[in-house]
């Protein structure tokens, strides 16, 4: 067997081993590769930064624990930016495990201790709502009856001071969505952005970017953080280094490995094809 044939029939487990090394080595020995701040993360940061202080923001968890490695660093960084301002924040989830992610976040940040934000007055978590798009439509019409009880204290939604003037989508100034798929941006646009004109910004996993990018061009999406690398840029903008920045070296090395393997595979394929034809 020639070396060309060997390249193409290499045991996939060696590739997995290389992938482990490509990820673990830079995590253990950070290379300090430079991070350049791109337009997406700057637009996302500026969008939140330029909001008036009394804005009402609905943060929606449209992802579960399985996507936490990619979206959690962005989520926590966003809350850090939000809680440094005097926004009114309502947290909901269209994905079942969304509240679970918020639990993890609250284990890391204490809004009252770290930012002086009082539950029920400055922010409230209403938890998960059922039926995805239908639930979003119901939420837009009546938040109180769609999510009648809050997630943390199990008290009626209408009893919180923060909720007194917030009842429908028209009372919300911005949706911030973190998401991995359906239900997600398309549904929010159909049920909130189009009928009520509620602006939306979002962070999503890399796979979704080609699907959601067209909404940026039309202006239906205000800003977008695409994947973990943009989250690292956002952490840098906030001056809050977190998991995304520490992952950047590993992303770079692992992607170089993938590029190298793609080139090797193609070289092997074309050379062996040329050999056969000759």
């Amino acid at each position, binding site marked *: 067997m020639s070396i060309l044939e060997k390249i193409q029939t290499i045991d996939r*487990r060696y590739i*997995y081993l290389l*992938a482990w090394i490509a*990820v*673990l080595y830079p*995590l*253990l020995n950070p290379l300090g590769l430079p991070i350049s701040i791109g337009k997406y993360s700057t637009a996302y940061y500026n969008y939140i930064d330029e909001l008036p202080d009394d804005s009402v923001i609905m943060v929606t968890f449209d992802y579960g624990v*399985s*996507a*936490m*490695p*990619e979206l*959690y660093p962005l989520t926590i960084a966003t809350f850090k930016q939000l809680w440094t301002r005097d926004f009114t924040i309502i947290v909901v989830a269209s994905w*079942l*495990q969304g*509240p*679970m992610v918020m639990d993890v976040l609250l284990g*890391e940040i204490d809004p009252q201790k770290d930012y002086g934000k009082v539950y029920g007055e400055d922010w409230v978590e209403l938890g*998960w*709502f*059922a039926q*995805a*798009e*239908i639930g979003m*439509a119901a939420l837009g019409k009546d938040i109180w009856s769609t*999510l*009648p*009880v809050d997630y943390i204290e199990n008290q009626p939604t209408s009893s919180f001071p923060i909720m007194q003037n917030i009842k429908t989508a028209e009372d919300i100034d911005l949706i911030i969505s973190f998401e991995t798929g359906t239900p997600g941006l*398309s*549904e929010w*646009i*159909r*049920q909130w*952005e*189009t*009928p009520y004109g509620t602006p939306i910004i979002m962070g999503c*996993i*890399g*796979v*979704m*970017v*080609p699907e959601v990018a*067209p909404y940026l*061009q*039309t*202006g*239906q999406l205000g800003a977008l953080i*695409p*994947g*973990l*690398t943009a989250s690292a840029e956002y952490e840098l903008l906030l001056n809050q280094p*977190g*998991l995304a920045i*520490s*992952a950047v070296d*590993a*992303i770079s090395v*692992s*992607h170089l490995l*993938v590029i190298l393997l793609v080139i090797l595979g193609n070289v092997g394929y074309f050379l062996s094809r040329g050999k056969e034809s000759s």
Partner: protein
Amino acid sequence: MADLFAIWTAAFFTLAIYTFLYKENTWFQIATSIYLGTAVGYGVTVNLKYLRDQWGGIWSSSAFMMTMFAFAMLVGLLWYFRFSKKYFYLYRWPLAILVGTGIGQAMQTIIFAQFLSQVQGQISTPLTSVNNILIAIMVPCVLLYFWFTGYGINRDTGPMRVIDKIARYTMMAGFGSAFGYTVLTRYSLFIGRCQFLLGITPNPPEAKMAFMVITVVLLATLFGWDLYKRQKTPTVLQT
């Protein structure tokens, strides 16, 4: 102590799932089964809580609410006829309600949200940059690529041949972009778990010890089992 147990459990399940990279094995099967069971259990609990929050205290407030509640419960119970061969058709009723309301809800705005807005966006794109010029050329080409009917269309000659070629290159670029982002996502997920296993802040530092110990145990059992099976398998003599 409870935290330490949680950390070791999380490390074990992460690594047990990754043992699949070596081959299908018992650790992987145990981890996936427990994960599925836990996820379903969590889902059922959250759904029941939602039901309680929605109806608790108000379902018996009036005859109308009681009727509505009884109707909703009845329709909900029909889902379980999925498991009956004889009454399977009853399961189609809640399914039809769900699909019908879902499509109806989406159809209200889909034309404006996802069709007209995209057309308007395409028309109003100013040709002031290379990107915008490329968009103005490529999008119509891809749309024409999927235009199959019409008088006198010959895709092998004339302008349609050029349009088809541009469309194919455009779609290839789109697929390549999607693939690239998919690699980013998969690696991001993997890196996130590695950050946990290495105890990188804010992950608990105790995870690093769990990672090393559990890796040794899992690899030893996997390789040991393979070795044991190889020794037990009689060698076939080739003539």
